[in-house]
């Protein structure tokens, strides 16, 4: 069908030969332009670590906003689902940012839990000290950000009980952890005070085994797996954002369930 804009007298087709190189170069420019914009879009999928700084800043801002929304949605009185002890997976699933051969067992006799920050009594704790406090057992689902989960049973002193005992400032924003395997982590105070957050020393009624965080790990039912550091060596209560191992690599900080 002839276009309405078609001139009555068509130009000489030989004119096209003069301009053919120009037309080809325009098409090439379009290809490069199209490629770059689609490439930039591809980079925003989050797979490419090398992003322009402006994109990085924007993504971080959105991540922080998500954290704030999650914090608002968090209900400190709501309990995560629990399960019968018969469903506990024995042994539990091992995970770390390295394979199991590189686990460095901790000497339980020499281990001390160091305290710092907004805490009144900063004396270090031994395993026996921790076990002398009231204990709680939770049988809950460990949910990994990677998409797998399992039901496990942990026992230990409720973190709230511990923080009250050492005179921590419960209005502070963050609780930070240092571990024997260089896996710094931190959580918000509201999650730390949740009744299903423990300083766990036992799994399925037995002492935590070396690959699973001996002598003590954080265990909470209200956060994704990577927010539960193992082989904890130090706790700090602070109002300064402490970050964490995976957070430095782009993972969300709040990671609530």
């Amino acid at each position, binding site marked *: 069908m002839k276009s309405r804009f078609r001139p009555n007298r068509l130009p000489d087709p030989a004119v096209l030969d003069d301009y053919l190189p120009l037309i080809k170069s325009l098409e090439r420019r379009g290809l490069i332009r199209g*490629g770059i914009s689609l490439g930039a879009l591809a980079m925003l999928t989050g797979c490419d670590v090398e992003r322009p700084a402006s994109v990085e800043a924007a993504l971080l801002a959105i991540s922080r906003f998500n954290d704030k929304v999650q914090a608002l949605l968090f209900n400190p009185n709501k309990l995560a689902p629990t399960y019968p002890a018969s469903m506990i997976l024995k042994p539990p699933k091992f995970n770390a940012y390295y394979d199991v051969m590189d686990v460095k067992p901790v000497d339980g006799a020499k281990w001390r839990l160091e305290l710092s920050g907004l805490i009144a009594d900063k004396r270090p704790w031994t395993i026996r000290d921790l076990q002398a406090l009231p204990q709680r057992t939770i049988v809950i689902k460990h949910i990994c950000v990677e998409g797998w989960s399992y039901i496990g049973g942990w026992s230990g002193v409720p973190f709230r009980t511990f923080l009250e005992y050492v005179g921590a400032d419960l209005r502070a924003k963050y609780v930070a952890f240092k571990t024997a395997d260089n896996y710094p982590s931190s959580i918000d105070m509201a999650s730390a005070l949740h009744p299903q957050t423990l300083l766990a020393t036992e799994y399925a009624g037995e002492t935590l085994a070396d690959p699973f965080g001996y002598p003590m790990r954080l265990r909470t039912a209200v956060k994704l797996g990577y927010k539960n550091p193992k082989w904890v060596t130090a706790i700090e209560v602070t109002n300064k954002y402490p970050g964490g191992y995976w957070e430095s690599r782009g993972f969300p900080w709040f990671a609530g369930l």
Partner: protein
Amino acid sequence: MWVLSITAALVAVAVTGEAYGQSATPGGMPPPTGMSLAESTAMRFPQPVRVGQLLHRDVLQPVESQNVLGTVREVVQDKSGTIEVVINFGGFLGFGTRPIAVPVDAMVLLGRDMEIVAYTPQQLQKFPTFMPSGSSRLPDDTIIKVGLAKPSH
């Protein structure tokens, strides 16, 4: 022209995506050459597990896609005392499998599954079909020790 640019972008995503998804220290690496299976298990913090818990578990390949190679049929001990896991290997959606016996020291526990770390699927294809005579089935309540590995994805 735009098809080319889309394809180029998709290839770029696929390449960078794969590089990022694969761990810097992948889980389930085979034992180094010269190391015995027993030694490699000893390095993997073997944990006690009840034989009954292992039955029907998926057996995975230690790669990012974690292909299911088969399922655990039973755990047996042969005359020399070696503990082996009999796996319904291969086939498709559970059909056309054949049982093979893999030494437990060639395997690891991976959450609710198991994984074979010492043999590739190609090597496993060449394993002889398992014959029950010569081995005794371990009762469900037996506790055996199996090594661990980090997930491969």
